[in-house]
């Protein structure tokens, strides 16, 4: 079975995380679970990759972190949550355009012929 190469997908980890954060603020494991589900289990993001992305994006101002408990009444374990910022939204849009272009270009060179 072909596995996804981490070199190729690296540039789009941020896009995936931002896509999820656009819907609602979320925390580490929840985000990695959603990435796995949305990709039909074809891509599993590594914990270190995810954390590196959080740190880098927070530094760049794309996301913000805050601490909260998962249940509304404050029960449950307190976790670090992340939410997308205005700049993050902009960055996400740019990444989408970039991908569309990349896909279009690469597509020309992909063939089903064996």
């Amino acid at each position, binding site marked *: 079975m072909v596995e996804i190469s981490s070199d190729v997908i690296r540039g789009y980890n941020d896009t995936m995380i931002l896509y999820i954060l656009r819907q609602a603020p979320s*925390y*580490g*494991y*929840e985000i*990695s*679970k959603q990435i796995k589900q949305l990709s039909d289990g074809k891509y*599993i993001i*590594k*914990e*270190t*990759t*995810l*954390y*590196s992305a*959080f*740190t*880098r994006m927070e530094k760049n101002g794309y996301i913000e972190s805050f601490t909260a408990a998962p249940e509304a009444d404050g029960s449950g*374990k307190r*976790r*670090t949550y992340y939410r997308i910022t205005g700049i993050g939204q902009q960055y996400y849009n740019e990444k989408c355009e970039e991908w569309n272009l990349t896909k279009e270009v690469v597509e020309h060179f992909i063939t089903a012929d064996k």
Partner: protein
Amino acid sequence: METIKKYLEAMFANLPRTPEVVKAKDELWQMMEDKYNEMISEGRSENEAVGTVISEFGNLDELAETLGLEQAVEESHELMETTPRRQLCMDEVRDFLHAQMARGVMLGLGVMLCITCSVWVIMLSGTFLEGIGVLLMFIQVALAVGLFLFSAKRNAAWKYLDKEPCQADFATTEYVASEKDRYHKGLIGQRSLGIILCATSWVPALVFDTMGLTNHFIIDNLIAAVLLLMVGIGVAMIINSSIVRASFEKILKINDEKTMSSRYVEAQKVLYENPRLNDIMSVYWPTVTCIYLSYSFLTFNWGSSWFIWPIAGIMHSMIKRRMGMVKQG
């Protein structure tokens, strides 16, 4: 779960202890724990959950890059090769703690024997057994010296803990920390009881005095003997509890405070602004003991010479408060 924790500890062991690294480790642990818990609640086996969590962890190089630690990681690898730390194992640390408990008992007992050695002389004075009293006193001092020498000789085996750089793993330091917690209340109680015994040692004398019973020499001698016994037992308790507590702290601060290798607890250490005072204070209690014994033997004034102990204690805490700085991690 333990396996995952150990895995994470091992991964972080040689990274510098900076706020960023501590935070990264906490966050990664949170994610791993969440993933593990969910797999278990889905009915997967422990082995499967642990295997998945570890295989999906990733690698630390990636993290080092984000945290700006490439250089630090390299340096710590180099340091490991150039100056390896002696790795302490669990059994060794357990032996050390047991040895220190025995040492606490021996030193406490020794000092008690010294303080109470004149009880025989006091009790038997004025009787035909006076000579035997003196003999018993010397036997007691000899026993005390024997205890001091024996425990010093046994303690020499652990000198490498001070001289060589050592390292204890996570499980070992956790064990020591839990033992420290377990003994904490007992040690505080023992120490307080010791202080109370010393501080109230004059109470029997006062009671008998107000009852007007102090003029009979047997009662006077008895009061002096009780006083010495109380001070002796009290000091023994203080010494024993301090030694046991110090042994826990020694292991807990054995790891390099700059790396994440395991629990690091900075013991409260008093430092004096004047470096010369540091040297003087390190021999404070032996000097006091020496003065006490010489004065008492020269004047045979055992009934009041014990007074040096409370005075020395008050002076010690005054010097500490006035000129000392408590260094804390």
